[in-house]
């Protein structure tokens, strides 16, 4: 029998579709503070699973939450605030329990001043004109920054100087380009190779703000995705935990340093 062109086309499309379905692939939506840690985790995971394809998307936790509600093609969702994945789980959009994976810390960071010699009190100084924080309205790190400034009794003094990043990575970028002299960013970003060579940081005491508990889920669309489950398991492994610690994350169930 002869194959007509249309049939041939359909055959090709069917083969193409089935082969993508067979290829092991996951897309991970991760909060911007994970930029460097997750790059390394995904690279390590891929070297242990050479056939696996891992796509990484970084952005703000709140935006991912909305997108996953509206069927975004993410298989795993790492939020900087565990409240978002919890809400998704309540809405029936998770295929796993909500896993706490880290507690985030905030730091003062500057590319133009020596932040290691600073404290929050220095932010009130007149020579500091602009301070970048993530938007407290929706960014988890921004909320913690606001809490810390309020607990230190500095909010009213520094509020006129604040500029708001859309997420914690943009906040760091405002400081890195020198447009803000100092910023309150994630420790995980301050210790990254890219930022640590540009300036030092001062760790903001964690008794000044609520704990920034971070959590992830496997999304409902990845319920049958074995690779997604393997990655979730990998997150609990010793090598993965070591990477997280290296980037300044406190692991759940472990006592916070300092």
């Amino acid at each position, binding site marked *: 029998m002869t194959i007509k062109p249309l049939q041939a086309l359909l055959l090709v499309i069917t083969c193409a579709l089935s082969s993508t379905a067979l290829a092991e692939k996951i897309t991970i939506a991760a909060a911007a503070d994970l930029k460097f840690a997750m790059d390394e985790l995904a690279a390590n995971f891929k070297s242990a699973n050479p056939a696996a394809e891992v796509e990484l998307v970084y952005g703000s936790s709140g935006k991912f939450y909305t997108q996953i509600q509206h069927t975004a093609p993410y298989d795993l969702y790492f939020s900087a605030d565990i409240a978002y994945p919890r809400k998704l789980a309540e809405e029936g959009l998770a295929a796993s329990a909500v896993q706490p994976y880290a507690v985030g810390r905030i730091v003062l960071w500057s590319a133009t001043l020596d932040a290691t010699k600073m404290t929050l009190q220095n932010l009130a100084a007149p020579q500091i004109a602009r301070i970048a924080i993530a*938007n407290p*309205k*929706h960014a988890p790190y921004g909320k913690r920054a606001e809490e810390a400034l309020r607990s230190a009794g500095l909010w009213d003094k520094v509020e006129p100087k604040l500029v*708001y990043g*859309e997420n914690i990575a943009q906040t760091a970028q405002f400081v890195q380009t020198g447009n803000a002299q100092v910023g309150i960013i994630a420790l995980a970003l301050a210790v990254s190779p890219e930022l640590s060579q540009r300036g030092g940081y001062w760790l903001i005491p964690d008794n000044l703000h609520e704990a920034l508990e971070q959590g992830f889920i496997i999304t409902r669309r990845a319920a049958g995705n074995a690779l997604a489950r393997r990655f979730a398991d990998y997150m609990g492994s010793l090598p993965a935990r070591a990477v997280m610690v290296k980037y300044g994350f406190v692991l759940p169930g472990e006592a916070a340093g300092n």
Partner: protein
Amino acid sequence: MLLSQGDLQAIVLTLELAGIVTAILLVVATPIAWWLARTKSWWKGPVGAVVALPLVLPPSVLGFYLLLAMGPHGPVGQLTQWLGIGTLPFTFWGLVIGSVFYSLPFMVQPVQNAFETIGERPLEVAATLRAGPWDTFFTVLLPLALPGFLTASILTFAHTVGEFGVVLMIGGNIPDETRVASVQIYDHVEALEYGEAHRLSVVMLLFSFLVLLTLYAWRPNRRKF
């Protein structure tokens, strides 16, 4: 009240920004449009292309370069610091400058088209009647090109109102300074305040529709002579 204080503040700020940008571009873009319409120079191509760049460039590219250029280490930033006005990112006037670049083609191109349509003839007639160049501009050229100016102003104003990417990159989201309506909507959505986002979005939708309706329904009589 349907809209919150913050929403109203954002709307007023957006209208201020769009109004100032339109006024500045009327002054800045008219000579460029005039030159582009008349010149036979080799430079017409490159200059026209540069003017049209914001139509094609992703706002992130424009925002990125503006942030670097206007920052403390950039050339514009060095200049503004030397002038004693600090740096421009995260300020209203920084947004004005960003928007002037961003909306430039929307002012230049319709005005340029209007000038080109008028052609040489009315200018030659004015010259034979001994009208000086400024006289010719205000009494001959401007009235003839008025529909072009109106179209250009409406488009520029509307395009500035619709600006988002550049503002997000150089604005810093400061209330009453750089938090325009588009950013305010984005914040509402991010904070899962869908009700607020809807209300402000409907206002923007109606506004944009009315602007375009004015533009398309209103057909000025271009040929009176």
